[in-house]
């Protein structure tokens, strides 16, 4: 699969992990999260905004993040998301399982 684009699609389920990790640094609204993802991954990860908001709702429904309305830098009402205690635990669990996964994948790829 020879793709010229430098951007890569997100693996299934990794968006949740990314959002939880970003929120660990502090509350943020949806737009800020997209900016952060692009900035931190140097624009490699292509986050479809369309999937971000359902993901946020999903995390909220599971009780991992909580949301509240607050005014943003440009003095507009924006919805801010914050990590809950359960979310913090989930982040640790997901980070651990991701590391196991990437190690295992690394071993397989290097085994040639």
């Amino acid at each position, binding site marked *: 699969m020879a793709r010229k684009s430098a951007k890569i699609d997100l693996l299934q389920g990794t968006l949740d992990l990314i959002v939880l990790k970003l929120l660990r640094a502090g509350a943020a609204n949806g737009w800020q999260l997209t900016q952060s993802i692009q900035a931190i991954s140097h624009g490699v990860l292509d986050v479809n905004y369309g999937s971000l908001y*359902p993901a946020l709702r999903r995390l909220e429904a599971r009780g991992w993040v909580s949301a509240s309305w607050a005014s943003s830098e440009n003095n507009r009402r924006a919805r801010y998301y914050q990590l809950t205690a359960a979310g913090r635990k989930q982040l640790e669990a997901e980070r651990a399982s991701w590391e196991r996964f990437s190690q295992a994948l690394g071993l397989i790829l290097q085994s040639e």
Partner: protein
Amino acid sequence: MLDALRLRLRALFRGSAMDAELDEELRYHLDAETERNITRGMSPKEAALAARRGFGNPTQLKEEARDSWGRSWLERLVADTRYALRSFRRAPGFAVTVVATIALGLGLNTTAFTIFDAYVLRPMAVRDPASLYQITWHDRGDRVRGFSWRDYEDIRNTREALSESFAIRSIFSRIDSLPAYGQLVSGNFFSMLGVGAALGRTLVASDAAEPGTQAVVVLSYDTWRSRFGADSSIIGKMVRVRGQAMEVVGVAARGFGGLGDTPLDFWAPATMNDVLFDGDGAFGPHQTEAFWLIGRLRPELTPSQGSAWMMSWLRAHHSDARGRDVPSDATVQSRATSIALTPEFVIFFTPIATAFVLVLLTACANVANMMLARGLARQRELGIRLSLGAARGRLVGQLLTEAVLLALPAALLGFAISRFTIDGGVRLMFATIPAELGPYMRIVPLAPDGRIFLFMLVAAVTAALLFGLAPALQATRPNIVQATRGDFDTDVRPSRLRNSLIVAQVTTCVLLLVCAGILFRGVGRMQQLEIGIQTHGVVRLDLQERPGVRTRVLQLLHDRADVRTLAAATDPPFGHRFPTVPGGAADGPVQPISYDFVTGSYFGLFGIPIIRGRTFTAQEERVGAAVVIVSDATARALWPGREPVGQVVRLTIDSTSGALAPFRTRREATVIGVAANVVLGTVIDPLDSPVAYYPSSAENADMPVLVRVTGPQGLTARRIDSALAKRVPGSVEDLHTIDDYMYGGIYPFRATYWIAGALGVIALLLTLTGVYGVLSYVVAQRRKELGIRIALGASAEKLVGLVLGQSMRLCAIGLVAGTVLALGVARLFEANIVRLDTYEPAAFAGGALLVMLCCLVASYIPSRRAGKADPMEALRSG
């Protein structure tokens, strides 16, 4: 987790607010993105476009977000429910018919289940009912045998197969002139069953230690309430049981009525047996096998192991038995419920259960037809929704939601119907049986319990699936192209099944209604039948057979001014069928002949004319002389054309009663008189069946006493009863007018036509909805064809006639089949009930006409719809 639940609930109830929130959030994102794009140097228009491009399809995004709230399945259910309710509002007639039909089926089944539950499933309200077993045994003569007191004590003390056991014997008596059912029990009865006392004490071991000493009685709670007005000072009072004064020592705990299927009124110590049963001898030197045995089977034993142990015990204890007396088998039967669920019972009950389930299935089939018709009518709507991308599962789900929504109110209504039929049935029974017989009826409580609600729920949901699934699957067949055109296959399903269903329904209907009509007319006529005897004013007394009682009672009756004639008979009219034995003229062939032992005054008392010869003399009565009076029909049958008086009758009487002992050895008697033909044991017996009367005295035991009284018979009967109760307490075991016995005899027929009539009406209702459902379906299916017919010039009347004709053809087949079956049943009636005139033109014509009218009404409404078929629609969709 709580937060998550709150969010879901909020999503459900405040969904629109949350949608607005999402909108605002997305707007913010777009605005922020646009602003950033502008700061990067894009034109405002370009910036906004770029921001939106990053988003994809906003509607899809919203749907996804909404789904991730987990609100969807709940929301879908609410939406489906709303949609279904809306569609019911549009067709209220449909909804009402479906609910009523299913409710009828469910209600009937619940009624049957309630009765089944009360007798077969509900465990007895005693300690550990599951381990209780009744032990019985048979001998080689195939007689059911019980246990002597000695046997019982031995089994109780060995404790081998049964860890505990008690002995019981049923007893019938009158308490305060009302009939009472009781039991004589061993002293451990109450403690073993763990039944306490609501008042006073129960029976204890010392009550049943010494024979004949403890004249005490424990009343049941219900009897204490209904007969003694819940009198709290009842303890220590005396009641008379079979003439014996017994002290009330307690009232048993509420809800306990013994272990049988008839709730009992009282319990007394088993050791009172010889006092209450006239020296029966259960405690004498030759202990009689007066008792039944119930025990707790050891948990490690199966019932068959228990019966094996019992057989070995019987062999050891009846080793001296010979011939017919040798034990052949022992039965160990569970007493956990009123009626044990034995294979015999299952075989007996299965046809009844099947009949009830068939009613429910018919109801479901009718509704399924209506739903099919509706599904076809909605084909276009469903087709459009399918082509717009609605998932088939979603539509099936929606149609099933509709079915469940119809089934649930039907279950509620069905429950109400079942309560109503049970209460009404019990009330109707007590209202229609002669008032005198009411106190003899005992019914176990039929209150609803958890099992009944579970049954209703399962039955309702099953019904919903049955009548909802097939139409739902068919209506949503994913044939989009055809469906959007309003087109459909015409040979969707073989219509033969539906048609035979209708024919079967009409047949059943006619059969039931005709039978009800025959019985109705028959009972009406039964009361005016020529029975040959004057029953009015005759009272029957069954006396307590204690030494001296009979003589005193006869004397008292003789002295009373309101007693005109006094007689006695071993089998008074309308008691039960007369005993019948082989017999005949001494020199003639043998034929069945009924017999009765009567006093000479019997014929005068009932106004039966003596056609030839004379009646018995007092001397003949006393010695049981070898003379006989035969009926006119008997005389004609045995000695046609000859003088009967002086002929000899030979009869083989196998009577065990002491008073009739002479007849066991002597078999021949000389005819001294001929009596007019009368009805014998029951109302339905023919007048001309052969009968021979033998002489017996009123002084002899086991002869019910008959008196002809003056004045209103019921009142005089009660007056005699209370006078005797005062002078010779407990002397009368039973006292009724012969008319009561006669009405009691007619009652089963009356009950049968009530039931047949009720079932006929239910069948009629089901047929109505059945015809309606099928025709609606057929009309919906043929709408296009009908439209084309109209377009080609057919008149509306002609189309209505076409559809009506189709249904009337089915109806006619059913009518013929039903009438033929009814003729067969009538023949069956006539074979068993000789005095019933079964070929009742009125009953046949009435039943058939009623069913036909109903079929016409049921088919008229859908037929009219056929007349209104729109030709334009047919042409357009073609």
